[in-house]
């Protein structure tokens, strides 16, 4: 029991100590963005790493959440919290609706279908300029809860931290539950899973909906935290970025998701001073990672040092 949560305790300690170590608000901002990405990547890793399905349009769900939190309070006067829930419900329903036909596909075809889904969301956001502000985006009112506006970075740090901790805890438990074992089973072999009585379609749909809801919720958090949304949140490049985080951190690894999100959020900032060479450096680092650590950082390192399976 203690071993199962060891990583969680480590994360908790890091989160608790971090605010006292960072020199200024920029690093706090970076930490918040890392946390937001970590939760999204965690959800995506459940789908890609554990269940073995791919979603190339995941940023579309982030876009749905973000724009629900921007459009509903601004144009229709909804309470931000209600808007956040509505976004999650919308993203979840959309995922459930398209999941059945989409998950009849496999491999490249599945990748294409999810890619299309993300692009459609992006096009809608770009073209409904009357509500979404079009390609230029729109501002988002601050998040209020019980009459208090949450607008300081410190508040957001703790909120994102709590969401992250809960997500990590839930993911660990999920993967060790019958549901998680069924998912891993269908990753290994769908036929075998079916033979032992796993309802493959139902499980695939469930995990897809769950990771879409994760993405939508964090889209809403991003929108309120940043105070501005633009359709680039939902574009193809962002989806790829998230998948890269999953792969670099380590497929099917809860803490791999965190490491991937932290590293790839920090890397562009670290390379920003290279003036024009940042994309080259970024590419080289990714290629080296994939050549020397094809399973991702955390699983590779875990296998080398002690072989502990997390």
């Amino acid at each position, binding site marked *: 029991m203690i071993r199962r949560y060891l990583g969680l305790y480590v994360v908790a300690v890091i989160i608790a100590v971090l605010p006292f170590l960072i020199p200024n*608000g*920029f690093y706090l*901002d970076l930490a918040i963005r890392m946390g937001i990405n970590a939760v999204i990547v965690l959800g995506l890793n459940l789908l890609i790493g554990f269940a073995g399905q791919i979603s190339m349009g995941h940023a579309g769900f982030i876009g749905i959440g973000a724009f629900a939190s921007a459009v509903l309070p601004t144009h229709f006067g909804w309470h931000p919290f209600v808007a956040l829930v509505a976004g999650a419900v919308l993203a979840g329903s959309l995922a459930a609706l398209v999941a059945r036909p989409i998950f009849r596909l496999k491999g490249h075809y599945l990748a294409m279908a999810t890619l299309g889904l993300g692009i459609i969301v992006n096009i809608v956001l770009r073209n409904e300029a009357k509500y979404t502000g079009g*390609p230029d985006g729109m501002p988002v009112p601050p998040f209020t809860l019980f009459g208090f506006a949450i607008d300081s970075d410190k508040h957001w740090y703790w909120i994102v931290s709590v969401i992250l901790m809960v997500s990590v805890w839930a993911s660990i438990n999920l993967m060790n539950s019958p549901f998680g074992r069924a998912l891993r089973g269908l990753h290994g072999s769908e036929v075998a899973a079916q033979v032992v009585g796993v309802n493959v379609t139902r499980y695939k749909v469930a995990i897809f909906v769950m990771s879409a809801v994760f993405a939508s919720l964090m889209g809403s958090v991003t929108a309120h935290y*940043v105070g*501005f949304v*633009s359709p*680039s949140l939902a574009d193809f490049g962002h989806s790829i970025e998230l998948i890269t985080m999953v792969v670099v951190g380590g497929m099917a690894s809860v803490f791999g998701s965190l490491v991937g999100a932290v590293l790839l959020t920090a890397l562009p*900032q670290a390379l*920003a001073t290279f003036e024009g060479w940042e994309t080259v450096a970024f590419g080289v680092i990714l290629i080296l990672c994939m050549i020397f650590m094809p399973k991702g950082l955390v699983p590779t390192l875990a296998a080398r040092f002690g072989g502990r399976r997390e």
Partner: protein
Amino acid sequence: MTIGGIALAIGVMSSAIAADPIKVGSVLSVTGPAAFLGDPELKTLQMYVDDLNNQGGLLGRPLQLVHYDDGSDANKANAFAKRLIEDDKVDFIVGGTTTGSTMSMVPLIEKAGVPFMSLAGAVVVVEPVKKWVFKASTTDRIAAERVLTDMKKHGITKIALLSDTAGFGQSGKAQTELVVAKYGITLVANETYGPKDTDASPQLTKIRNTPGVEAIFVFGFGQGPAIVTKNIKQLGITLPVYHAHGVGSEEFIKLAGPAAEGVRALAPALMIADKLPNSDPQKPVVSAYVKAFEGRWKEHVSMFGGQAHDNFFIVVDAVKRAGTVDKEKVRDQIEATKKYIGTGGEVNMTAADHMGLDMWSLRMLEVKNGAWVEAQ
């Protein structure tokens, strides 16, 4: 001894302050789809920061340009703005190439209180007025009003609007629809085309078949307007054609060929620098900019680089007048900018107007014998 020590300490401190660079922050879209805007903007800033440093800096302090490339992604611009404000602690910010990037930076800038000169196009940047946000570059509203004024002068009352579906055309369309009635003009046809379309004949055929159209107003950018101009000629439409401020370059005439003859378009004085009469108040600044830019980078100037020039020097002048980089004082001085002559026109800021340009800052050009000249 104590007094001597304090005096020494003060002496050391003030010399340290004197050597401290003034930090110019900048987030521009140097890569990605908006790179054709961001690239000349960055080159302009680099050039003038170097220039000022060679002339002894600003207020006796050297300037340091801290620049990040947002890759044309508004969300990245937001993160970099945070970095400029919190980590680099810049004294003022020039940039935000696109409207999206600018608007994503605005909440942070308003909260932190840093003088901010945006290089973006849309009117939302300065309307409603935001305390710390300025933009001395032309807007789509001005472009629309300038074209409509010219149409009114020629007695045109019924027009067809053809705009692209990208941000530039859509924002321009919205602004045109907003002000058109003020000039007693009605939109009898209102069509759009995709910025990557290779043919706009269907839309133009519809416009040709609409009764009563007296002129065509094209709101677009890049190669689209050139294709539209060609199609107009091919369809034998002889109505006057007006373009907004996205086409006033040699490139357009090359692309549209003979069809460009007689077409009218808006552009800042910068685009006709060599044809401006010596009496023109913008002549000196425009010629100097063209000479400096083309000398250093060996490429043609664009209105976007020119906007970077104007916005940069408005803050530089404000800092000089304030005699300090105190943010509140610099902001007040930017707002007090009067009769600043830039490449984009004369800038007069007020508390209610953080753009400061009027519609006459855009020149109405006309293609005559294969070259842009100012329309009479």
